[in-house]
């Protein structure tokens, strides 16, 4: 084991181990060493990860043979041996993110899995080392070109860290070796935060499920590669990194992006973004039953409740409340891309007409149907691609100023709030005993005081609200509206951040 100075615990174990066990362990590290050709700091880091994971497994009574079998460096293949030669132009919707971001204002979202036992960081780190080899389009750093930003392949050790801040804070991408995502743990929760430049909720969920599945395998489970769990030994599909906006673009009618500024909820904007996160944990059967009683879908019901809660947090009845509903374009166009491929529906109701849930349900249902129609979304896709094509020959230095100004005036000012619903996420049955629930948190942007998102796993629907104000009226009214429908809610979240 040339590159690793074994830890004291491992050295102590090896001294007392049999010849056979020593040989098995040394073979594992030899195999690992032969697969690493990175900067020495990364190589030492990865070797140390395996050392710590092995020590942990041995300390829990797992036999050396079984521990080595679970850790198996063959999962890494030759990924860390080869120089990175991959790069990816940004997809059509990602191009705006690096141009519109500023300090403390970055489009970040988080996906989390709550395990049934406290997370073992040593095993999570080794799981990440293996899983990232399957997703080269996430192993990237953000780079600046002359006309556009782009994603440059990055062969490095991506570190798992313990949470020490509010979710969806900014990610430091200033160095050419900085990744655009981070994996964190806290208690029983594994979280991945993505800069939106990389992927959307659907793509991010594939990564999370694969990471959690590999983590469970290191705990001893036998998890199949089904229900969206990728096989980490498989060759990555090039279509996973395609820009599906270009693949499905057809010249034709445009529409969907322009609009008037929306009424914004009250409450002073906090400096720290977001100022807090709240999760409403509900039984998905109760939620579905409440929606069925009203004769609408779950998304319609929740959107209507958000309209009412938004109105409750406004003093003035002037203006329109506009809710943005992201739509996964993979439901319309068959695409396996892991990059961004979503657009949005825009629902609008005058604030003065939002009195209670029942009075707006029909209107919300109708707008949701027309706003998520294939025709409307295809027009929006055409607009998006045409806008990007028009801006192509302009140097980035000029484009940046222009987009920042436009985004400052339009951007999230067109909406009062967002509801992004990932829907029911399936996981393999074998993974169910390990995963209690999942959540999905949207980072806040400039002016919207709240951003809502939801995901349903294992019968638990978790509605998350990321706040940009200390004013609690929005979430309190939303809670009241949902509990009035007979839905039991457990509320969890973060402490309110100081300004």
């Amino acid at each position: 084991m040339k590159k690793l100075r074994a830890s004291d615990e491992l050295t102590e174990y090896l001294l007392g181990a049999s010849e056979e066990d020593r040989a098995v362990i040394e073979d594992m590290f030899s195999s690992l060493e032969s697969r690493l050709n990175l900067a020495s700091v990364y190589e030492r880091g990865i070797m140390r990860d395996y050392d710590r994971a092995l020590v942990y497994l041995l300390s829990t009574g797992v036999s050396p043979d079984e521990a080595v079998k679970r850790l198996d460096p063959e999962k890494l293949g030759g990924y860390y041996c080869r120089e990175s030669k991959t790069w990816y132009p940004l997809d059509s919707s990602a191009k705006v993110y690096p141009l519109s971001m500023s300090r403390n204002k970055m489009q970040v979202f988080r996906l989390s899995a709550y395990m049934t036992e406290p997370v073992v960081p040593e095993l999570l780190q080794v799981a990440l080392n293996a899983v990232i080899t399957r997703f080269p389009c996430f192993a990237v750093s953000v780079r600046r070109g002359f006309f556009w930003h782009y994603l440059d392949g990055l062969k490095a050790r991506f570190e798992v860290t313990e949470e020490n801040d509010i979710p969806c804070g900014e990610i430091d991408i200033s160095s050419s070796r900085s990744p655009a995502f981070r994996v964190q743990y806290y208690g029983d929760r594994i979280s991945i935060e993505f800069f939106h430049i990389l992927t959307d909720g659907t793509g991010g969920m594939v990564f999370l499920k694969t990471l959690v599945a590999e983590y469970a395998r290191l705990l001893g489970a036998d998890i199949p590669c089904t229900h969206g769990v990728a096989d980490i030994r498989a060759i990555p599909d090039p279509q996973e990194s395609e820009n599906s906006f270009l693949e499905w673009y057809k010249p034709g009618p445009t529409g969907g992006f322009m609009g008037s500024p929306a009424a914004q909820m009250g409450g002073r904007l906090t400096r720290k973004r977001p100022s807090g996160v709240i999760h409403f944990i509900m039984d998905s059967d109760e939620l579905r039953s409440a929606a069925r009683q009203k004769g609408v879908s779950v998304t319609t019901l929740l959107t209507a409740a958000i309209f009412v809660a938004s109105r409750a947090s406004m003093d003035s009845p002037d203006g329109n409340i506009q809710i943005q509903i992201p739509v996964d374009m993979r439901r319309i166009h068959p695409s396996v891309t892991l990059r961004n491929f979503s657009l949005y529906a825009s629902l609008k109701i005058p604030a003065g007409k939002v009195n209670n849930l029942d009075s707006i349900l029909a209107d919300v249902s109708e707008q949701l149907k027309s706003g998520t129609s294939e025709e409307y979304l295809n027009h929006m896709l055409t607009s998006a691609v045409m806008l990007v094509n028009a801006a192509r020959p302009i140097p980035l230095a000029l484009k940046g100023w222009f987009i920042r100004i436009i985004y400052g005036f339009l951007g999230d000012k067109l909406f009062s709030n967002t509801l992004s619903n990932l829907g029911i996420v399936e996981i393999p049955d074998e993974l169910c005993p390990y995963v209690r629930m999942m959540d999905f948190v949207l980072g806040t942007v400039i002016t919207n005081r709240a951003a809502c998102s939801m995901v349903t796993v294992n019968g638990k629907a978790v509605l998350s609200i990321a706040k940009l104000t200390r004013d609690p009226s929005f979430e309190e009214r939303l809670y009241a509206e949902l509990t009035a429908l007979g839905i039991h809610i457990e509320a969890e979240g973060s402490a309110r951040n100081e300004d």
Partner: protein
Amino acid sequence: MKIKNTYPRPDKRSAFMRVLRKVAIWVFLAAAVASVAVNLAIGGKPWCIVVVWSIFTASSLLFSPLVESGVIAQGTRLVLNAAVLLTLIDTLLAPGWAITAVPIMVAGSLIALSCLLFVEIKRHRVCSIPLTMSLGAAVVASALYNILTGGLNVPMLVLGCVALALFIAVCATMRGRLFFELKKYFHLR
């Protein structure tokens, strides 16, 4: 509604840089506006242009870009800004010395930045394009200056030779990788 806390308390972070940036932006803006106003009011040489460009150079260090703000990229930007600043001072205020001083400053800075690149070539080559282009631009500027003036300006000639040598060294070290980096840098997709 009772909310169970399931998140760690955020670490307290020093607000010094945030406060500094917040104060600095107003100070810079005020200084820039004031200098233009005073210069227009009292007339004379357009020294406010020098002031505004100086403020821009200082602010580019304090408000570094959020993407690719490594040492070599920042250093290249600083060298170019400083060269423009010295040229402005020479052109607008006190002519006659910049043609000697600027090539020497630029040549020295390019040597220093190139040394940084070569010391950790594997790590820094991915952000070598701005430096490489600056070396190329220095060669072209030196050649053009000497051709157009018809004379032989020694500092510009030295700059041209140093930049050419460094440019050849960068190309030789990076070889095919350089075209790959250029292709990424200028992509239009």
